[in-house]
């Protein structure tokens, strides 16, 4: 990343502001000036993908979607600056807190904001410079690829001369998780997924795709802001909604009552259909967390202690039966 003085000069010249300090906060920078603070968000993707991301943000702002923070233009009217080999955009820095998915009222605020975001996302026009991620129609194929990747982790474990405790645990759970993956693919095929995608592609909407509690900020008077569109994707809104349900209920909190409350709030702005629950149940059924942990351990080799990997796996395995029981009930749930 650019050195401090270069970055400071870059911001000052492009935005005509006098920077007092720049502090890294997670993946962003807090740019402090005498009167106010700004947020500089650097996106580590290629330019055409960056254009898609800021295009999606600007689309929401133009449609006056509540809680989307406006991008501040440079002195020459551009939406971004170059920072080393990447591109970055500037917004106001907001005095907010992170949403807390243990707090039911925060969760209601989050699902309401998501519903509005999806509704406002419709009608998004791409231009030829944008290179988006596309999820429509792809999840059957994606899940098959991910199942193959799980099999690959298994082969890697078998080929190891010395297996770690994590290897043994991961391998022991593999057969059941692959069966679950297969069932989720089968259930997605049996649902009206393809028909739904045909309808959705006409609406030209998009998904946030990383609706984690730390990307949903709550400010004064419970105003909600949605940030970090780095994983934004052209895909069904059901994908975001399923992912939010998992985030709220994982680790022993699976409940139809919670689901019903959240879907009712979502439906205040959007219009869920009867066929949607079977699609969402199939999305939620895929052993995403198990696959992701495998990616982190066997492919990305994230530098975490073995103990951390084991704890994460234990949590996933402890939760799987209860989650599956919930999924079976949810599949038949009528919205």
């Amino acid at each position, binding site marked *: 990343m650019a050195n401090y003085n270069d970055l400071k000069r870059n911001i000052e010249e492009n935005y005509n502001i006098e920077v007092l300090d720049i*502090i890294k*906060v997670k993946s962003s920078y807090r740019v402090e000036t005498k009167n106010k603070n700004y947020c500089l968000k650097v996106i580590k993707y290629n330019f055409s993908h960056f254009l898609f991301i800021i295009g999606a943000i600007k689309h929401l702002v133009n449609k006056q979607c509540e809680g989307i923070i406006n991008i501040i233009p440079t002195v020459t009217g551009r939406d971004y600056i170059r920072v080393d080999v990447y591109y970055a955009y500037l917004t106001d820095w907001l*005095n*907010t*807190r*992170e949403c*807390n998915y*243990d*707090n*039911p*009222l*925060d969760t209601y605020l989050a699902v309401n904001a998501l519903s509005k975001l999806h509704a406002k996302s419709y009608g998004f026009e791409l231009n030829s410079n944008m290179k988006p991620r596309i999820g429509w129609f792809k999840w059957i194929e994606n899940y098959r690829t991910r199942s193959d990747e799980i099999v690959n982790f298994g082969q890697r474990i078998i080929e190891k001369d010395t297996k770690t405790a994590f290897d043994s645990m991961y391998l022991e759970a593999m057969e059941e998780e692959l069966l679950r993956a297969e069932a989720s693919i089968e259930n997605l095929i049996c649902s009206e997924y393809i028909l739904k995608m045909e309808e959705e592609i006409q609406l030209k909407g998009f998904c946030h795709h990383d609706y984690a509690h730390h990307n949903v900020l709550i400010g*004064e008077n*419970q105003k909600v802001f949605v940030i970090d569109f780095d994983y934004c994707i052209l895909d069904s809104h059901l994908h975001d909604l399923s992912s939010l349900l998992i985030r709220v209920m994982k*680790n*022993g*909190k699976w*409940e139809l009552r919670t689901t019903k409350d959240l879907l009712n709030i979502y439906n205040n702005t959007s219009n869920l259909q009867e066929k949607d629950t079977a699609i969402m149940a199939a999305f939620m059924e895929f052993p995403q967390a198990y696959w992701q942990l495998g990616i982190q351990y066997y492919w990305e080799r994230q530098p975490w202690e073995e103990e951390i990997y084991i704890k994460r796996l234990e949590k996933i395995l402890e939760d799987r039966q*209860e989650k599956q029981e919930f999924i079976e009930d949810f599949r038949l749930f009528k919205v």
Partner: protein
Amino acid sequence: MENIYASTLTKYLNNNGIFLVDDLAKNTDYSLETIKKHIEVLAEFHKRMIGYTAYNYGVLANSTGKLMERYKINNKKLKRQIRLCESNKDKSSFETLLIDKGPEILIRAEHAINEAYRFGYLEAINRSMKRGEVCLGNSSQSNIRMENNILIRDISDCGSNILELDAVYLLRKVKKNFALDFNLLANYFCEMENIAESSKDLILALVSYPHYFMKCFNRYREGRKTWDEEKFTNRLMEALKNDGNILI
């Protein structure tokens, strides 16, 4: 970043007459009057801290909802474990006790949660979020005291939360060993805090939750302690006693 936050918090505390100390002399007086006085200290602490999080998001933990979610998870795990134990052919003494006492405890636990919701749990969260309430977490007499200033030994459990929980933590601890008028104390807390009367019953519902039973059960289930079956059985019996009577 952490240092900036820490100094900001300490500065805020000190500016408001709250000081962190290494130790506090043990107070073994659990008379009704002493507990009432202690409730006044807690109310003063809450008053001085209110709104702090509104301008300092991220400095303190946000614990709102965590306790209730933990309680709901406990209930599910206990239900599942009872079923599992019942299907076991050879039952250990702990499992036998769990089958014997578990269903009754489960009813009590579910009742406590239902009553908490009935007596304004969500409304309390709403109020707490709007006012920026801060809960101390460890609200016992050995952790906070008034001596000209407010002195606190440990602030690590302090966070955004409904302030009723400080009453719950305090009364649960007192109830373990002393039979005081908890109805009166919960009421006094609400008076001192100037919060809705329904919060009295919310507090009593949460104090009635079988906290010690669940704590012991979780230790058994998670294998966190290397106790043998007999020790676990004895501890569970003790927990039953510590949880005492239902207050609502």
